[in-house]
């Protein structure tokens, strides 16, 4: 395992009978970073996470979490991982404190630490007032937050979160995202599976797109965008109408759209070409108001990858 890498999978494969649920997945996640795992339903995200928590045994390949092998050190792996499962699955007849007490004992937290962490986390997620309520009375969002509290209770260095904000209102979702970013800052490492692409774009340092059990794309958003959507798209706005200038620009870049006083173009090397364009326009007495990159949305990138049928592309 390379230094600084907290999650490492190499050719991880899971077969159920003849069905291949996860097909030779390889990835590395450095400490203090977030990897978002995206993919259609049934793509193999949950199975991958289950193998990384030593719940399922890989058919072949290997994975190490926080330095522990998922096959040979399952107890240690599970002791160092906080997991938010797809279904939060709480014990509805228990009160929140009893629930956290149970899991705290399982993780061998001493009572003082357990109470302190439970209180802090419950406060962090706005559940302080519900500590003494039975979980059956919790709303869906509250249950989701409590499941997150459970996952974070033992202060694990690695967190594997399956749809962490799926049942939450926007305010609660932001609370959770902030908590993830804060913990990332403190060198906790995350794999977050989600269908919320905006969330993935906000949280993730890198994104893995998984389809039919295989990682078909892995990289930063910018890398994926460049690979799967194309060269960067720029938008130039000037004070006066462009008139014949568009034709001149077409000789320098690939113009995609124009308006009265704006033009959008794609350019291979914006750091070289854009200053030339600005100089050219200034020389002609044209005032440049703005020149900025237009970000493709992750949705565009995701759909291009998932629907595009690109077999494998790892920037």
């Amino acid at each position: 395992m390379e230094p600084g890498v907290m999650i490492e999978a190499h050719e991880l494969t899971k077969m159920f009978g003849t069905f291949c649920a996860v097909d030779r997945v390889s990835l590395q996640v450095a400490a203090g970073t977030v990897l978002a795992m995206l993919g259609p339903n049934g793509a193999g995200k949950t199975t991958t996470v289950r193998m990384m928590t030593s719940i399922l045994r890989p058919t072949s390949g290997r994975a190490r979490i926080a330095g522990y092998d998922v096959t040979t050190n399952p107890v240690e792996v599970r002791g160092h991982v906080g997991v938010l499962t797809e279904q939060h699955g709480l014990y509805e007849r228990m009160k929140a404190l009893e629930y956290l007490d149970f899991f705290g004992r399982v993780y061998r937290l001493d009572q003082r630490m357990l109470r302190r962490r439970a209180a802090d986390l419950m406060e962090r997620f706005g559940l302080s007032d519900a500590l003494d309520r039975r979980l059956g009375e919790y709303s869906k969002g509250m249950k989701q937050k409590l499941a997150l509290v459970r996952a974070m209770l033992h202060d694990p260095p690695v967190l594997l979160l399956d749809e962490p904000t799926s049942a939450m209102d926007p305010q609660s979702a932001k609370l959770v995202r902030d908590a993830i970013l804060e913990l990332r800052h403190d060198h906790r490492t995350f794999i977050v599976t989600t269908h919320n692409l905006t969330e993935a774009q906000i949280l993730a340092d890198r994104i893995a797109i998984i389809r039919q059990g295989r990682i078909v794309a892995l990289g930063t958003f910018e890398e994926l965008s460049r690979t799967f959507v194309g060269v960067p798209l720029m938008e130039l706005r000037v004070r006066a109408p462009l008139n014949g200038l568009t034709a001149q620009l077409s000789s320098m870049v690939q113009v995609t759209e124009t308006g009265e006083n704006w033009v959008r173009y794609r350019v291979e090397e914006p750091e070289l070409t854009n200053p030339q364009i600005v100089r050219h326009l200034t020389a002609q007495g044209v005032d440049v108001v703005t020149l900025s990159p237009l970000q493709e949305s992750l949705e565009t990138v995701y759909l291009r990858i998932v629907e595009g049928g690109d077999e494998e592309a790892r920037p």
Partner: protein
Amino acid sequence: MTVSTTERQVVFPDRPAGRWQQIRWTWENALIVTRREVTDSLRDWRIMTPIFIMTLVFPALSQFGANLMLNFVTQYGAELVGERTIPFLLMIVGFFPVSLSLVIALETFVGEKERRSLEPLLSTPLTNLELYIGKTLAAMIPPLLASYAGMAIYLTSLLFGELAWRPQLMLIIQIILLTTAQALIMITGAVVVSSQTTSTRAANLLSSFIIVPMSLLVILESIVMFSAPDADSPNGILALWAILVGLLIGTALFIRIGTRIFNREELLASSLDVLNLRWIGGTFWRHFRGAEKPGPVAWYRTEVLPAVRQLGKPVIVILIATLAAGLLGWAAGTYSAFRLPPDMAMSSEELSSNFNNLFELGAHPGSVLLAVWQNSRVLLAGTIMGAVSFGVMAVVLEILPFGILGWVLSQFAALGLDPALFFAAVIPHSLVEIPAIFLATAASLRLGAVITRQPEEGRTVGEMWLIAAADLAKIGLGLVLPLLVIAALIEVFITPAVVRMVLGAS
């Protein structure tokens, strides 16, 4: 906000290295699970209401019933019936709350699976064994406590009430032990059922495979308690001790299966809910027939003989069990209680005369068919019983005749009869018949026991069972049946001649 610091606040401890510390650690973890589950059960009115009723109402009803019955039968001078009913009702008072453990066990395992609360638990550092022990204890504690409480109430009312019952202490201990053993076997069985199903509906349906035999066992126990000749023995009833041992063996087997198949992968993935007859038939046939359309010789070489080679361990088990049964039969025959009554004992002359009468009936081909049919159906019955009892009943059925033979031989010795006659009547056809019986029983034992073992990599328990069934069929049709035919021919046409020879000589 003090939740996150770069330095982790909590560090997961390493498991201790020493053996005893590890055992302690395992039990501590298991008891964390048990405590949660028991607390949860105690909060569930659907569990607590019947437990409460069975603990408090049933003993009172039983006590009332016992009084009523004793008074009634006393009028007709049948006090014995009343006296034997009292301990029987004690057993029933204990059994009813214990039967609830089945419901709790199913709820504890498959219910949690259905409510999707299992996966967070499986994501914790608890080991499979800790989860298994924790949940098994949790399913057992409330009903067993209720059972003991119920029996205590019933006993107290009998000992200090109007009846002033004075039972044999050992009988009470036997009943308490039997109740505990019944709870154990039901729960360990339910764990196996639960871990192989994905819905409580399926688990409840499959649990009939546990509750029906248990009910039959209770009936058997009641018959034993009513009719055992040693019912008043201070050492307890021998047959009940035997049942207790049987139950503990069954429990050990269930625990073995449970710990083997109670793993995270099985719990999350397995499903017996879908009955795929085509797959079942195809798998069986593929393993029975073997390679593509083999000829008979090739079939024997590539399919039957390799199947026989798989029977090494089962054959050893059967050999030991058979020898033990024979010796036990012999030993029993030496006790006066089990000796042939003097009015039934025969002299050498009477025995010879009986044999001669038998021989006068003559050797008919029909007798061959009859012998084959008799042996085949016994072996078939053993296979069926073995399939639902981890192979145990197949062995029991097989060793019974050897126990009887041991007893018969001991009676020959006791009566001073010539043992050569015994051997002459048994050995000729047995030389062929016994290997056939051993092969069939060993294959049945393997079939029953295959589910107690970890499946081969890439195969399910069901697939392993079908392969063992195909092996059994190959051995049965390819070897056992032909051997039984040969043995029957010897028994009908050769054994009588040998006996005649011995009779003539003597």
